[in-house]
């Protein structure tokens, strides 16, 4: 005891940092404790009958439903179908958006040719296209993939184009001085320079893709997470409805984590994306 109080320094070194760390840990605990408490109270309220199971089933019973559906494989079939739809739409829309963005970003001629028309189409909320899409493609797979592709195309296009536009002309001048060829300019300057913007586009596109998928899967389907929800609605099976909502949320979180992984890989040079800087 005497040691601790004898010099000011030992007091400072023995206590101050620990207090700092414990506060960080405390806040971290708190941020997880709140949702845990909410779920616990929900469970408790359901068990003592405060919440009717048709309105909001207990978390434990949703979990049981997930285990049952998972055990007979049904859940994964529907999940797989949904993911394939999303991936197909994303690849098609993303490729078209990236290609158009690169061309328009590069060339004022291409901009004159395409940009105004694309911006006009972009002004349409893509969900407003739904009836038209059904008339064009019916209610099959093509309609669903088309809707996802449409939702993905514009954020990728806009952000790719802007990313290329924003590249410092002084760097392009440097490339001229050094005598870099066109391929080297694209590889060394244009693509890495536009990458932060392109990845922002990918983030938006993923969010839009999910929205499109949820809507598309409410159209007549026999497979997919959306079908699971619609089917459960018919039978007032709130457990399954809630499960599909949670699955959509999990897929969203996973997709976001994937983009973060890409950012960590390609933007480690950027102060904003360096380790720990982004939450």
């Amino acid at each position, binding site marked *: 005891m005497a040691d601790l109080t004898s010099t000011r320094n030992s007091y400072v070194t023995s206590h101050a940092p620990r207090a700092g760390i414990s506060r960080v840990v405390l806040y971290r605990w708190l941020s997880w404790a709140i949702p845990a408490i909410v779920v616990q109270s929900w469970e408790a309220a359901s068990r003592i009958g405060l919440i009717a199971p048709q309105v909001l089933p207990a978390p434990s019973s949703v979990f049981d439903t997930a285990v049952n559906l998972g055990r007979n494989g049904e859940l994964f079939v529907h999940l797989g179908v949904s993911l394939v739809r999303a991936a197909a739409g994303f690849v098609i829309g993303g490729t078209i958006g990236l290609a158009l963005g690169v061309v328009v970003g590069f060339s004022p001629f291409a901009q004159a040719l395409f940009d105004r028309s694309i911006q006009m189409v972009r002004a349409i909320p893509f969900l407003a296209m739904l009836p038209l899409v059904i008339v064009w493609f019916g209610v099959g797979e093509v309609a669903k993939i088309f809707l996802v592709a449409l939702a993905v195309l514009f954020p990728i296009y806009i952000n790719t184009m802007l990313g290329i536009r924003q590249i410092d002309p002084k760097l392009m001048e440097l490339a001229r001085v050094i005598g870099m060829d066109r391929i080297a300019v694209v590889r060394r300057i244009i693509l890495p320079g536009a990458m932060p913007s392109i990845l922002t586009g990918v983030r938006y596109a993923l969010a839009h893709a999910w929205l499109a998928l949820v809507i598309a899967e409410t159209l007549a389907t026999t497979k997919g997470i959306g079908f699971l929800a619609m089917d459960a609605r018919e039978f007032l099976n709130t457990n399954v409805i809630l499960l599909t909502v949670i699955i959509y949320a999990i897929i969203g979180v996973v997709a976001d984590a994937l983009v973060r992984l890409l950012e960590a890989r390609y933007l480690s*040079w950027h102060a904003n994306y360096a380790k720990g800087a982004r939450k």
Partner: protein
Amino acid sequence: MTQSQVLSRERVGASSSMAVSVRGLQRRYGSRVVIDALDLDIRKGEFVALLGESGCGKTTLLRALAALDRPDAGTIRAPARPSVVFQEPRLLPWAPLWQNVALGHENTIGRDGAARALAEVGLAGREDDWPRNLSGGQAQRVALARALIHDPALLLLDEPFAALDALTRIRMHGLVKELVALHQPGVLIVTHDVDEALTLADRILVMRAGRIAAAFQPKDHAPLALRPILLAELGVRTH
């Protein structure tokens, strides 16, 4: 409008002792003549400073020598690819330092070549570091390494130290002198700073209204005697 004279840009042979040779250079923006019938010769190994007020045409001249700007008339005999250091370091933030130094020639120069060039500017062992971790002076050193790695016959410096603090600038002056003595390029430095010109240059040119209005050899003058003369040429009175 008079007819433009024959304009050409010729390559200087490797054997020539001349780094750059300019005859009758003219550059107009609309009706405004920015460079007017300008002649300039710089030998290899010679350090020439170009002083002048803003808008006198000195940066336009440098850009013409760097083939970044097309003159309206005259001839420029210059190496096909002079090296340029700009006021900003112009590093690619997404490339590690060695790739910045070897930019566009990564395969021929390689990591080791870039590392040697970095060591030459006092940044040994930093090849894998990112530009964002550099101070202003360090970033400009990398730009210098990138310019000198090609052993240029002509080195063009466009106010390269203007954005640096006074102490860093003095250190950079020492480094540039050493490196120029080592690589022996012809050097043209464009600057506002009379003291910088006096420290670095073998020959000081004062540019006014698109022409070279005066030329001085610092070695012909007593130390400190040239400074007030140069300032007077630039329209600054000292007592």
